[in-house]
Each structure stands twice: as C-alpha cells, then as structure tokens.
C-alpha cells in the first residue's frame, strides 16, 4: 500500500495517543497501512485490561480506607478529649468572625471535596487526602505543617493508580484502546474530589467497571458502572432509602434521586431523551438498596457492592411507560437493560462518540452510521469502534480537534520516549491545564470541545509547560528528527522552517510540542 502521510496523522493523532519516539517506527507503520494500524489495537487479547502487581480490588481498597479513617477518628477523639480537659471555657463567641474571614484549610477543602460522611475529613490530614491529586499538595517549605509528613494510604493509592494508567498510555502501540478507555471513563465519570473513598477508588473503578467492557457490550459496562461502589458513593445512592422500606421508616430518611437522574441524563438517554421527572423518581425508588458494605461488614465484605433489601422501596414501579414488578435487585437491572437498548441511548452515545473523535460538530452521516452500528449489534462497543475506523468521514474530516491536556501530556511522553516513573509531574500538569486526573467538576465529565481546550490561558500554559520541559531535556534532542517522527511528510513547511530556524535545541523542542501538528487531532 502506498504511504499516506496525512492518513498516518489521522491514525496516530485522531485515534491514538500520537507517535512514539525512539525506534518505534510508528509513523512509518501508520503511513503504510493507516486503518490496519488502528484496527490492530483492537485485536490484542485483553488489551484493555490493566493488571499491575500491587493494584488492589475495590473491597480491598475500601477496607484500607475504613481502617485508616477509623485510626484518624480514634486519634481525633483522643486529641479532643485531651483538649477539652485542658481548656474550660468554650471558645464560642470570639472564634466565629475570625473563622469566616479566614477559613481554615480543612474546612475549605472539605466544603469543596463534598465530604459528607461524618467518617471523613475530620482532620487536616484526612481532608488533604481527600483533595490532594498528587505531588502538588506537598506541603511548601514555609508551611506551618511539618513538611516531612509521608503520604497517607489514600494519596499513595491514587498515585499508584495514576502511574499505572500513565505508563500504559505512554507505552501503548497505537493507543486507540487507551483512548477508548479515557472516553468511556469520562462518559461514566466519578470525581476523586467527592471524598476519600472516591479518591481511593478512582483507579479501581476504571479497571473494574470500564476496562473489561470497552470492547464489550454497553449494557454490561452500564451495569458494572452503576453497581460499582465508587459510582454509588459519587452520586449518593448509598444514602438513598426507599421511603417505605424498613430502613426508611425506621430512620425517617428517604430518596436521593441524584444517581437515577444522571444515569438517564448523562449515561444513557441524554437530555431530551424522552424521560420525565416521574421517571427519574420511580427509577430512584427502584435502585434504592444499591449500596456498598461499610466498615462493619454487616451487609457483606466491606467496600463491596451489595443489595440491601432493607433499604429497597417495595412494590412495582413505572419507568418510561413500562411496569417493573420484579423483586429486589432484578427490578433495577431490568430497567438498566431496557434503557441500554433505548433508541435515545444509541443516538446520544453515537453523537458523543463522533464528537470526541472527529469534530465538535460531527458529520451527520457519521453519527447515523455509528448509531446504526450500536443499534444493530445490541450495543457492541467493539463494533462501534470498528464502525468509526471504517467510516470515510473519520479519515476525511480535517484535524480540527484540540488535544485535551491529558492527550497532550501523554503524547509528549510518548514522543520523548520517557516512561513515567513518578506521576507527580503529569498530575501537576493536568491540574494546571484544567483537567485534574479523575476529578472533573461535575458528573458530566470534562468538556470535549476544541474551544474548551484552546482558551487563551490554556495555550499560554501549554507553552510554559513545553518550554520548561524543553529547557530540561531539549539539549539532547534534535527536533528536526522528532518532527519527522510526529508528522513525516505531512508536516507543514512553516512548522518545519520554524523548528529549523529556532535559536536553540531547547527552543526548537518547545515549538515542536506546540506546533499545530502536535496540538491538533
């Protein structure tokens, strides 16, 4: 097959994470068979799974958090007992205005992290654990806190999970499967900022609920996600009780419709997908009892998904005009199975998929093809991915999308052939560029438009990051060679000239990393 450099750019950048440097030969391989290069990524057995020694299961991680929180709580109680014997006068009146003018770190962090369980974030250390996405939270030299504090189990786990994901992204051959993982992980996002459990579970959630299904069935991924403790915690379902359930009557608490609404609005049908407020409320009743076992293990192994019949709203419910009379967990599973194959879901997923990979306003013909593939195969996500790669539109549409910060940093790591050994620098870069790992601002995930990532301060920050990286390692690299690895013959004459005329190797590398060929996909 003739070499096609422009198609190689599409294969590497639109579908993958960019060409790897060194002797990978990625650009040449992609140029000689662009489609084959992408499709090959789909045929590696278990290629989406991430099994790394030391990464634990969700229940194992849950147990570690519970134990850690218990210790913190004990220490706090002990400290409080000591304090209350030491000071007799309650500091009620003098503290208030001061507190408001100058909120303390733990309280502010807690407010944003949304730590709502009384088990969490009761101490400064714990609050920090709940919000710190890695090395950027190292105490500064002038911190009043002792700077030598070792990272706690939550920080350590988050960093280990992040590192495993980063290494996979940097090393992957084409990276199409990893791109699919990132897409689905953002579609079914949780936020580590929700609290200690969410931070602890953000990696295991992706490994257990997303990765096994990115080339499987949408319905299976949906079920795995909505029954995963991390999602139940993120969208408050572990707190939702059927108003007429035994627990609801005893504890005079009731429904929380957060998860039910976001499943319909964000995970499946989409806004305008034909559901009503009544459907949301009924569905919320149906999934009462979907929770995870707590520290005491009364309902099951701590940190595992359980169905708590005591919290489940009894009786039949109507959703989208259909009556669900099943008992127990089967009722909610039946609803999930139905909305997974609802036409609105196929439409919503097809449009979002095309928008992510091809264009902010994707060609309608492409969206129709994807919707058709999704519907005809009963939501087979491998078939969806293949339909995208086999479409003409995905190869013809100009490369107008902007690489997200994550894609940009991973692509840089790949080109420079540097296997990450410490996640801190990546995590710091992601924070700075507005895409903190596993921590979007809301359940709708990170934005997926070019405008979102090509904002003025974002471009300035990318340049600063590129310049700093180049200052550190650029003297050992020839960016003219790197440009050939990135874009081959498809590099524009202007980019080539800009790099050739750079005043130093460092400057040349910074310019290469910022070139349209490297930023657009």
């Amino acid at each position, binding site marked *: 097959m003739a070499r096609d450099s422009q198609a190689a750019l599409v294969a590497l950048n639109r579908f993958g994470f960019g060409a790897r440097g060194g002797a990978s030969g990625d650009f040449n391989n992609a140029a000689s068979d662009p489609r084959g290069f992408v499709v090959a990524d789909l045929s590696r057995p278990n290629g989406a799974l991430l099994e790394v020694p030391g990464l634990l299961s969700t229940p194992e991680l849950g147990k570690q958090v519970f134990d850690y929180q218990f210790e913190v709580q004990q220490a706090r109680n002990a400290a409080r007992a000591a304090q209350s014997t030491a000071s007799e006068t309650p500091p009620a009146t003098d503290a208030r205005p001061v507190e408001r003018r100058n909120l303390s770190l733990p309280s502010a962090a807690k407010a944003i992290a949304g730590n709502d369980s009384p088990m969490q974030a009761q101490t400064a250390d714990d609050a920090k654990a709940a919000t710190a996405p890695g090395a950027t939270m*190292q105490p500064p030299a002038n*911190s009043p806190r002792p700077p030598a504090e070792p990272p706690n189990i939550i920080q350590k786990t988050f960093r280990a999970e992040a590192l495993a994901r980063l290494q996979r992204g940097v090393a992957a051959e084409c990276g199409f499967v990893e791109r699919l993982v990132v897409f689905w992980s953002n579609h079914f996002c949780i936020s580590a900022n929700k609290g200690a459990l969410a931070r602890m579970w953000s990696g295991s959630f992706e490994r257990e609920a997303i990765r096994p299904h990115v080339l499987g069935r949408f319905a299976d991924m949906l079920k795995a996600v909505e029954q995963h403790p991390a999602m139940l915690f993120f969208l408050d379902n572990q707190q939702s009780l059927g108003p007429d359930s035994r627990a609801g009557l005893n504890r005079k608490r009731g429904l929380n419709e957060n998860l039910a609404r976001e499943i319909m609005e964000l995970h499946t049908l989409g806004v305008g997908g034909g559901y009503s407020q009544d459907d949301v409320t009924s569905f919320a009743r149906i999934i009462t009892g979907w929770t995870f076992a707590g520290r005491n293990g009364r309902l099951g192994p701590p940190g595992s998904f359980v169905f708590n019949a005591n919290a489940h709203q009894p009786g039949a419910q109507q959703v989208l005009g259909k009556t669900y009379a099943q008992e127990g967990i089967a009722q909610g599973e039946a609803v999930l199975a139905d909305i997974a194959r609802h036409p609105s879901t196929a439409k919503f997923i097809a449009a979002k998929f095309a928008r992510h990979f091809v264009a902010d306003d994707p060609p309608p013909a492409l969206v129709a093809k994807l919707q058709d593939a999704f519907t005809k195969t009963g939501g087979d996500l491998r078939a969806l991915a293949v339909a995208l790669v086999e479409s003409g539109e995905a190869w013809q549409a100009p490369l107008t999308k902007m690489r997200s910060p994550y894609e940009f940093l991973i692509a840089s790591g790949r080109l420079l052939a540097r296997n990450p050994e410490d996640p801190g620098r990546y995590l710091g870069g992601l924070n700075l560029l*507005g895409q903190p790992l596993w921590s979007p601002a809301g359940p709708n995930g990170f934005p997926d438009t070019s405008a979102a990532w090509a904002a003025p301060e974002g471009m300035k920050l990318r340049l600063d990051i590129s310049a700093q990286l180049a200052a550190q390692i650029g003297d050992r690299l020839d960016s003219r060679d790197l440009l050939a690895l990135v874009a081959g013959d498809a590099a524009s004459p202007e980019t080539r000239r800009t790099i050739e005329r750079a005043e130093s190797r460092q400057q040349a590398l910074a310019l290469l990393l910022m070139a349209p060929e490297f930023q657009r996909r």
Partner: protein
Amino acid sequence: MVCCESLTMQPTSRRALLLGGASFAAWAYLPKFARAADDRDPRFIVIILRGALDGLATVAPVGDPDYAGLHGAIALRPDGPNAAVMLDTFFGLHPAMPEFARMYRAKQAAVVHAVATSYRDRSHFDGQDVLESGFPGPGRVQSGWLNRALEALPKGERVVSALAVGPTAPLVLRGAAPTVGWAPTALPQAADDTAMRLFELYQHRDPALASALTQGLQLEKQARGEDMKPKPGAGGAAAMRLVARGAAKLMAADDGPRIGALAFDGWDTHANEGGPVGRLAQLLGGLDGALAEFESGLGARWRDTVIVVATEFGRTARINGTSGTDHGTGTIALLAGGAVNGGRMLTDWPGLKPANLYQARDLAPTTDLRAVIKGVLHDQFGIGERVLADAVFPDSAPVKPMKGLVV
C-alpha cells in the same frame, strides 16, 4: 517526562482555584459609557453559582409557617445559636454571610426571592444553558446574554487586562464580543522570543490558536506582579476570595475591564447540605468573602458597581431522604454593590403551602430572573428595552425590566 517541576515544590498552582471551581472572564473593550456628567463609571459583575443554590437555605422565609417543617433539620432559625440574620420580620439571611448582611443594612445589597429563569426542567446543564445563554430554552450555547449586551454598547479602547480562571470563559460571556482571560500560575514563563516565533507559526497555520495565544500572553504580562498567590493549600472558599480579589484589582483600574463574569461550582447539595454550619455554609462563606473582596478591591469604584449573583434553579422545598435537597425551581438572586438601591427584599412571596409549591415540590417562581437582569442592564448602561427584549434575552418582550434596582 519532565514537566511542571516547580509544581511539585510549590503550592501556588491553579489546582486550588480549579478545585474551587472558580472562574472569571471579562470584556476585552473599554466601553464608552463612563458618564462624565455625574462622574459615574459603572461596573457590572455577574456571579454564576453552578449546581443550583438552595435559596430557601440562604435567605430563609423563617416567617412562613411551613418553612421549618419542609426544611427540617437544616432549617435556619430566627433565634438561638447560629441564628439567621433577620433582613426583615419574615426573611432571615444565612449566618455564614455577615458581609452581605452588613451591605444590606447599608442599603448596598438586595435580595430577589422566588425567582427563576424560564427553564422549568431539572437538568443542571440545560438550566445553566438557559441562565447563561439568555434564550428561553436550552441548547443555545454559542453566545451568552452578557456578551450580546456588550455588543449593544459602543466600543472604546481595547483593554488588555482581565483575569480568567478555568479552561474557558463562562457561557454567559461567550460570543461575538471579544473577551479575555488569564490564570495565575507558579510556572516559569516561556521566553518572549519563543512565544513570538510560535505566534508567527500560528498566524500562518492556525489563526484560532494565534488569537488564543496572543491573548494569553498579553494578559499574563498585564497581571504579572499582581499578588495572586493563593495561600498554601487554599481551596474552596479561599479560592472564591482569591479570584474575586484578582478580578476586583483589575476591574478597579482606570483602563481595566468594566464588565466581568465569575462562576463558582459546587452548590449541588444533594446530601448533608448542613444548616447554619456545614457544607452549604462553607460555600456561602466563600461567596460572602468574594463579595467583600470586590468591595475592598474596587475601592472608589464600588459606588458605581452592581454585582448580580444567580444560579440555574433552586432546590426542593422539602429536604430529601439524605438531609439534602434535590433539583427544584424557585430560588434567590442577590444584588450587591454601591450602586444597588438596596436594603430591600424584592419578592412576591408565593408561600410554601403544599398547594402553592411548584409541582408540589419546589418554591414556585413569581419573578423572572430576566426582569432583574434587564433592570440592571437598563439602569447601569442605558441599554434599551427593545434591545434587551430581542437581542440580549430573545423572545422576552413580555418580561419587563424591573425598575429602580440601581441608585
């Protein structure tokens, strides 16, 4: 990969601000509406609270006989510890907002209650689209009402100072009228020469990136030297104050922007919302601090300023099963600033009896938020009713601008 080395050493990253979910953006032109006649140089700031603020928990109708029952354990009380600050005999302000209470007493702040946009469903994202786009329904995300209001104003000099934190300008300020942004960071700057070379490359190959980059560079230059460093570990409430402080500093300058927008995230209090203390209280404290930062930072210009605080919709009148509130309808809008005709509760109170609730669950809206904003835009900048009804808030002619909001 070796990047962002300094971030591992310094806490002054954008992280805190992003965690706080705070952002600000401003118009790129100096408008020509400084009113020489009475030495007025109006400022207008919109603060969007994303996630849906519980208006009944912020300005509580403690005089309504049904309020305490509905809001249950998290209801504010007129007396006792952490009592609400009574604004009149009926409404009490959340105790986490002493600065707003002070402004209210000084007649520089007002509350609009039982207010809502035209949106009547309960999706955050659609609700924010309507709130910020100014269109009657969702899905119109190309431009915001504030941007279209700017287009109606006569252009003046180009401003190169403004501040934006967050990946994009909020929708309310997005559109044809150019806006600008900047983010404080601890990262070493790329050399000017490198930036210029890149700019030239973009000019030839990618004009959109050229425009974004040049704006980013100009703003950085302008704001460099500002005291924008967050306190170590600052998050949440502190981030709100920080963004407001930076915005106020830039907007106070004679050649600074006159019109800006901020967005604060995190108001979606489904569980354990908290009453006088707790999660919502922390957020309100941050908002209160941000208003105080504007007051002190704008200095002499505070007297020409109107700040409007608005949210996409309210929350259920009755607390849910998890001591929080779910998505609702009617809520509050706050006005603050020296130019506000304040010290007033502006409401046509619908009552909280079951029959009076919207769909038997939410505070029924009796005031259209667009009327409030139209009133401010008209009084502050002289934007005509026709433009407001057609261009700024399309298809809104029946919604008349509220009169007398500005001194």
